[in-house]
């Protein structure tokens, strides 16, 4: 009985250590903003992609302003098997992404200097449709 209790406690601690809540992820992401001011967060929880179908993608729209430098950060839950990808689109296509496919490089954030005010779209997904929780944070970089 005591052994069972011990196993349960260890299992619980293991789960809490490896699966932060979305709110905790927001705080982690905001702590790492540096010289940027928080504007908005996007909390995403994706199930694994169904084989043969497209990976789940969360989409958000925002107005971004000219002459402004924004930072888009992504924090992925430790329990997630994949890495989070955050992309910025305008109506013509991709403007920026934290994942460079050619070199298979991930960045935890990128800065984008906007020169054209308008509606932009933020997409958050996991590479290869892996399941997991991620948080994207949009922030304003001080001039």
């Amino acid at each position: 009985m005591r052994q069972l209790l011990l196993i349960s406690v260890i299992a619980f601690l293991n789960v809490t250590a490896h699966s932060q809540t979305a709110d905790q992820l927001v705080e982690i992401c905001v702590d790492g903003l540096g010289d940027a001011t928080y504007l908005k967060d996007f909390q995403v929880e994706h199930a694994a992609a169904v084989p043969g179908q497209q990976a789940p993608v969360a989409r958000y729209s925002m107005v971004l302003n000219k002459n402004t430098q924004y930072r888009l950060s992504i924090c992925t839950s430790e329990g997630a098997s994949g890495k989070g990808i955050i992309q910025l689109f305008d109506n013509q296509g991709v403007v920026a992404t934290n994942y460079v496919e050619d070199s298979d490089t991930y960045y935890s954030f990128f800065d984008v200097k906007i020169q054209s005010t308008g509606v932009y779209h933020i997409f958050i997904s996991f590479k290869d449709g892996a399941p997991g929780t991620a948080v994207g944070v949009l922030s304003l970089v001080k001039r």
Partner: protein
Amino acid sequence: MVKIGLLFLVVPVLLVSCQMGRDSGPGTDFEIPDSVIYAQTLEISEEVMEGIISNVSSIVEISSLIKDLDVPYSNSYLATTANLDNYNTNFRRAFMLGVYGADLGYLNMYNRTTAVLDYLTSIRRLSDGLGVGQFFDFSTLRRLASSQSNLDSLMFISVQSFNRMDNYLRQEQRAHLSAAMVAGVWIEGLYLLTQVAKSFPGEELFERIGEQKIILNDLIIILQNYGRVHPEFAGLSEELDKVKKIFDEVSITYERGEPEAIERDGMLMIIQHERSIVNITEEQIRALTEATETIREKLIL
């Protein structure tokens, strides 16, 4: 079937209550939840509304721009908190929550922590009146404002509290209150920009004022939609329509260009080469300033 039955029960009551112009705020003996009133009558889906509402510019960005232009702080730009008792409908509470939220962003940007406490008190009363006070951690906000120790945290918690409240309202099918709040933020933001431009005219401010055209069209669509079931929304959309007529003469053109990625010290930076150009005259700025003053005066009394 039960839901349909309930709908038949609710709609006649709703019609009577609308005709009588009753306040939908707390204190009435029998209330139909806002979610029931609005969810059954609108043609634009909540999903579409959500997308439109999210597009409103952040007051943090407007305040940051003003501060970066070395414009000194002035409390004359802010809405008074003396008329709080007049905001006795949910529409007015939500609208003023937006206005005060915008002012709070401005105050935070200028580190005016004493005034922040006053606005926090007003925000607390309005948000409690709407049943969303739980999203503001007032004790932490007060502590941060009083100690002046961590202004970044004060800004973060303030903005995050508004974002959470906004999300909650939309999830609970009270997106109309979110729309009223967003309208408050937008009008106060435009008021701030135009008032500052009056004393400190400059191209960057003019351009930011002109860019508000992008948001206004969507905002009016939302307000008109809710205006079909609530006269306060219809009244506001009519007022904003006057502003829209001025913005209709403002043009925004675009020069196309491909974004460029630069990696420096392990950091990724993207520079956009597409440019937007706002064509706005000083006469149009003057007209927008006057129109915004008129609307705001009517709404914050």
